[in-house]
């Protein structure tokens, strides 16, 4: 078995003046992996997500997405990579207020390729919101809004889904629904990277990395991870 890698980070740092939000991080993320990123507030989780999500560049080190050097791309190229390969989910939902649930999903299709209402409806059905297609975000509960965001993130079948505290604002019931959706995505082979404060959510991942002061302080690998990608320390898969 020779699992492919999605991301390869070597010596990645992101500095804000004196402060190193990320400090010399080496990390390999496998295709189809479910990775949890945990750590105290200010440890650099969001900074890492921004770099993986092509929204920010490291101040030093290299980031490969597949074979592509992200740190060498311009803004335009990064936008293209985002639209074609990455789905993003945020803690604060970020739906467009004046568009309905359905339209919010179609916006993602619009920037990706061509809006397809039937497909967008199917995505809403999948997150259990088929009936709410015509509702505006403010007419939806927090959990429902987050489910719309999940539908939006997966509408273009991205190879990677990045979620920054996706369940941070949800009650248990909605957290379960979102995690179920993640499990489905994982089963379908999507690479999932989930930042969380919640130990139970983190435990859903095949592997957890614990950040502290911008460094990877600890890595927890499950048996499932070992089976899928082989026993390895931080670094190259065997």
């Amino acid at each position, binding site marked *: 078995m020779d699992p492919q890698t999605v991301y390869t980070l070597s010596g990645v740092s992101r500095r804000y003046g004196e402060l190193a939000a990320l400090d010399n991080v080496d990390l390999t993320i496998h295709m189809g992996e479910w990775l949890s990123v945990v750590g105290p507030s200010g440890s650099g989780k969001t900074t890492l997500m921004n770099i993986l999500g092509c929204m920010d560049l490291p101040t030093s080190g290299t980031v490969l997405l597949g074979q592509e050097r992200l740190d060498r791309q311009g803004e335009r190229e990064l936008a293209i990579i985002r639209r074609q390969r990455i789905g993003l989910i*945020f803690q*604060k939902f*970020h739906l467009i207020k004046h568009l309905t649930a359905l339209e919010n999903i179609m916006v993602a299709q619009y920037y990706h390729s061509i809006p397809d209402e039937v497909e967008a409806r199917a995505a809403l059905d999948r997150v259990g919101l088929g009936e709410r297609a015509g509702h505006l975000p403010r007419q939806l509960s927090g959990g429902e809004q987050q489910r719309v965001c999940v539908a939006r993130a997966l509408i273009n079948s991205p190879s990677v889904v990045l979620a920054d505290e996706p369940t941070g604002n949800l009650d248990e019931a909605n957290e379960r629904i979102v995690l179920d959706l993640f499990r489905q995505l994982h089963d379908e082979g999507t690479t999932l990277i989930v930042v969380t404060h919640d130990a139970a959510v983190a435990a859903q991942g095949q592997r957890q990395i614990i950040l502290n002061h911008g460094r990877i302080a600890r890595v927890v690998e499950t048996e499932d991870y070992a089976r899928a990608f082989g026993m390895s320390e931080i670094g190259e898969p065997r």
Partner: protein
Amino acid sequence: MPRVRMYLRMITRAFARRISRVLVASLSIIVGATTLSALAIITYTVPEQIARELRSYGANLVVSPAGTQTVRVEDMETINATLAEAGVQLVGYAPYRQDNLLYNQQPLPAMATDFALATVLRPYWSIDGQLPSVAGEVLVGRDLAQRYGFKVGDTISVVAQAEQGVDSEPARLTISGILRTGGTEDAMVLLALADLESLLPSGGRLDMIEYSLLGDEATLESVASTIDREDESVHAQVVKRITRSESGVLLTLRALIWIVSIVIGALTMISVTTTMNAVVSERATELALKKTLGASNGQLVGEFIGEGVILGLFGGLLGAVGGIAVAGLVTQEVFNLNLQASWWVVPVTMTAAALVSGLGTFVTVRRIVGINPAIVLGGE
């Protein structure tokens, strides 16, 4: 769904579902468009109407009853004789009598005259149809025609109210033409003196005789006092004609109004750019989110310009309607003219406003490019 349709859907939703914000944002456009369209109407329509009225003042001497006396048709003969004696050349003259008739219980202002004479003094009368040529034919003013839906060829039934409150037998009048003057005649029915006399006998009473005479002011003044002396029952008054140089003032005014318009246009533009910049800040998260979805700066700017154009069309429409109302009021109060509806300003104003607003949106480009989704969406 074609991408163009999704584009239109996004920008129209942003407009329709944020209508209260949109109203605030388009306030400056509405105000600017109102002012500009009102000025445009006044500048281009009023002078035209005034010019028409200028020609109207063919009369330079007006004879009316002195005090409580009555002027009669016979007096006209006397005055004409006096004028001939004084040796002034008569270009034209026309007698007028005014009264109210009743149409469907509504008062109908009527003016009786001799059409052949009156049209010489009032060459600006514009008639759709024919001048009355036989007894019982009348002209109706444009405003009256509009109010009651009169058309050329219609027959209307009117009655005259006699002194004791006993109405006359209804008389049938045939409309031979609709009169457009931009003046008070627009609200009247005009008929021959003889017709009014048979409806409402008055013994040949007149309310005014207009004269157009050749001669300088001094000559006219002396003629006027001669008439006053010769006939106790009348009062003659010299009226000043509006001269060419006075209409030159209108042209200067037109130029001035153009300058004011440019200043207002510039102010509107500044205000639009400020508003648009504020809107970008207000919607920074939305823009950042679209960037994370892969939107390019060009696409986002394109959406904003689209919204700007819609905003302009909307503000322009409201502004044009407001401008027509304001211009109507101003011309009524200041120039005492009945403004002819100037619907041409609606498309002109909407186009201009869409242009100003669309162009004004270009200033947002820098701000849109400057939005960093990592910072905007990450920041608490």
